[in-house]
């Protein structure tokens, strides 16, 4: 076991996989010599050289297009998009090409690869350093979408993603990249992480807290706000079951539906804008599969339907007080 933050855990996963499998490589803007603007690929250039830790020209479309080509030929690229906000110049390559290659070729060609992208707000980054674009990719058939919330999961999920036969979009919640132990809070960051081989299977949610009154599903940085909210309302006797989805798609539907069947109430928390966000999918799934168990309307606690702001970002993101409010209202309904 070693104490790591998420960045270190990501770095550890990359290093281990690159040692294990010579076809694995990292690529992107500033990822090579410099080790990435968030330092996720630091040291890999020294250990594996410029052919496996690749500084690319400044083009996300080029990064993903080239990575698709590499993967098609048999390499296993882990491509970094410097901020999730900058994934859109590569959107066509991801949605029309990467996601459809296996299907359109009847399995003749595949491009298993991982796209890593730091996402989310909380660093005063405004419109273009704060977005949470997961819904776009969840809506796209052929992609898997993952977002860890803790160092151990970051490591285990990233290793699983690299080994997965399908393309994975791997979002990293940058607000909790470096951990931030907060007085009195459960902080699953700066955490003990297994050294060496450690995998967390894709498609399995984590039950972070058991409870019988409300089910709360969330992921990424909002896990920590949610756990804190659950802790606060527990003092009022409200027992919240907190589920960290970890793999967003394909989601662990059994964990979700099983819990809601038990609690009868459902709250989803995410930073991304509300309309057509992933919360809508989760609410609908639960309503389809546990309708008769629902005792209150499922609630969405999400970013507002505006571009991500700067000064007022704490009014934008669904922080603990808003989650507490939603839990109380849902429980009281």
């Amino acid at each position, binding site marked *: 076991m070693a104490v790591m933050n998420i960045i270190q855990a990501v770095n550890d996963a990359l290093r281990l996989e690159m040692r294990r499998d010579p076809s694995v490589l990292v690529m992107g803007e500033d990822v090579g010599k410099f080790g990435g603007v968030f330092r996720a690929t630091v040291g890999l250039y020294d250990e594996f050289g410029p052919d496996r830790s690749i500084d*690319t020209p400044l083009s996300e479309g080029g990064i993903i297009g*080239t990575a698709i080509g590499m993967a098609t030929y048999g390499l296993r690229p882990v491509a970094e998009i410097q901020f999730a906000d900058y994934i859109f110049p590569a959107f066509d390559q991801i949605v029309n*090409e990467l996601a459809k290659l296996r299907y359109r070729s009847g399995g003749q060609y595949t491009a298993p690869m991982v796209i890593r992208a730091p996402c989310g707000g909380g660093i005063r980054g405004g419109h273009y350093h704060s977005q949470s674009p997961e819904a776009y990719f969840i809506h796209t*058939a052929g992609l898997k979408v993952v977002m860890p919330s803790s160092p151990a999961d970051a490591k285990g999920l990233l290793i699983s993603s690299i080994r*997965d*036969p399908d393309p994975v979009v791997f979002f990293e919640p940058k607000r909790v990249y470096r951990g931030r132990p907060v007085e009195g809070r459960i902080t699953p960051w700066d955490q003990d992480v297994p050294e060496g081989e450690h995998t967390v299977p894709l498609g399995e949610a984590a039950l972070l807290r058991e409870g019988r009154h409300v089910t709360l599903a969330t992921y990424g940085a909002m896990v920590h706000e949610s756990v804190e909210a659950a802790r606060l309302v527990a003092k009022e006797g409200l027992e919240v079951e907190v589920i960290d989805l970890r793999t967003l798609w394909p989601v662990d539907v059994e964990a979700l539906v099983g819990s809601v069947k038990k609690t009868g109430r459902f709250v989803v928390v995410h930073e991304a804008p509300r309309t057509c966000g992933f919360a809508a999918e989760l609410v609908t799934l639960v309503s389809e599969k546990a309708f008769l168990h629902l005792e209150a309307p499922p609630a969405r606690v999400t970013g507002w339907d505006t571009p991500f702001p700067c000064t007022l970002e704490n009014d934008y993101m669904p922080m603990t007080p808003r989650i507490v409010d939603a839990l109380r209202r849902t429980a009281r309904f």
Partner: protein
Amino acid sequence: MTPLASRETPQGPLRILRDDDQAPEVPIEPGELARMYRTMLLARNLDDRLIRLQRQGRISFHIGSLGEEAAIVGSAAAMLPADWIWPCYREFAAALYRGMPLEAYLDNMFGNADDPSRGRQMPDHWTGRAWNVGSVSSPVGTQIAQAPGMAWAAKRRGDDVAVLVYFGEGATSEGDFHVGLNFAGVFKAPCIFFCRNNGWAISVPASRQTASKSIAVKATAYGVAGVQVDGNDVLAVHRAVREARERCRRGEGATLIEALTYRLGPHSTSDDPRGYRKEEEVEPWRAADPLPRFRRYLEQRGLWSDADEERVTAEIESEIRAAIEVAERKGPPPLESLFDDVYARRPWHLEEQYREALRLREEG
């Protein structure tokens, strides 16, 4: 060739087949020359037949190569068997030349149960992995951004494999053209960017795509070699690609080849070019048809005769007829195929959806 003149660079495009139908030093085996010509004939015949099938409503679509056979076959023939060829949508002749069976091509045209892509894509959107041939995608230009990755991967693996990627002059306007060429330049990827400049992108003339003097000159912007070639001269195309292939082998990186040719037919069966171009423009290009031009060369070398032409044409026609008959009779892919290959394994939601679709089919 009159029609080329207006689009020439100062040096003029590379030509080998002279107006007197001779050509100096052609380093291609006679057998291969004949095979090239045969494939061009096959493509020509297929185009004709498939357009008729579409008019009869027996297939839904065809996008042909009429007039561009020399550019397509000449380039494919210049590559080595281990090389990868990544197509645009007009290069079925390249795949057939590489060995993809006519049957496989027609299975895709009919989208039947035997289509290797399981009827998931439109006609003319085939995949030929077994022959190191890529997967046709409709979005214009996407393959250009991918090819350098394949080429670089081959290089890193130490394989002597180069990648030939096809596209039209319209595709050069997409961002993917830029990023593909730029990455190839920076990574010295063994990649051959082959632009069929056929004068038109549906209804838009090449002059509207770019204000640059030529497509080949764009190579300068990426530090890669740029070559302009007479695309209706199959030997010149072969030479240009073979030279680019040599540069790949020598580690000198990528080449952008502009093959000046002309789309003699409609853009596809969905199109009628009379709406946007004049017959006067087409006429000189008809006279520059790459098939008779190549045939005259073969004939003067004694490698082809009227008898060969007749025999091979008859062969081709009966092959096509037979293959169509078989392909057309095959049923559609099974319902299950709709839900496979989205992922390596079918996840729970697709399993549920498959069961729902099955129930609906059985009940309805």
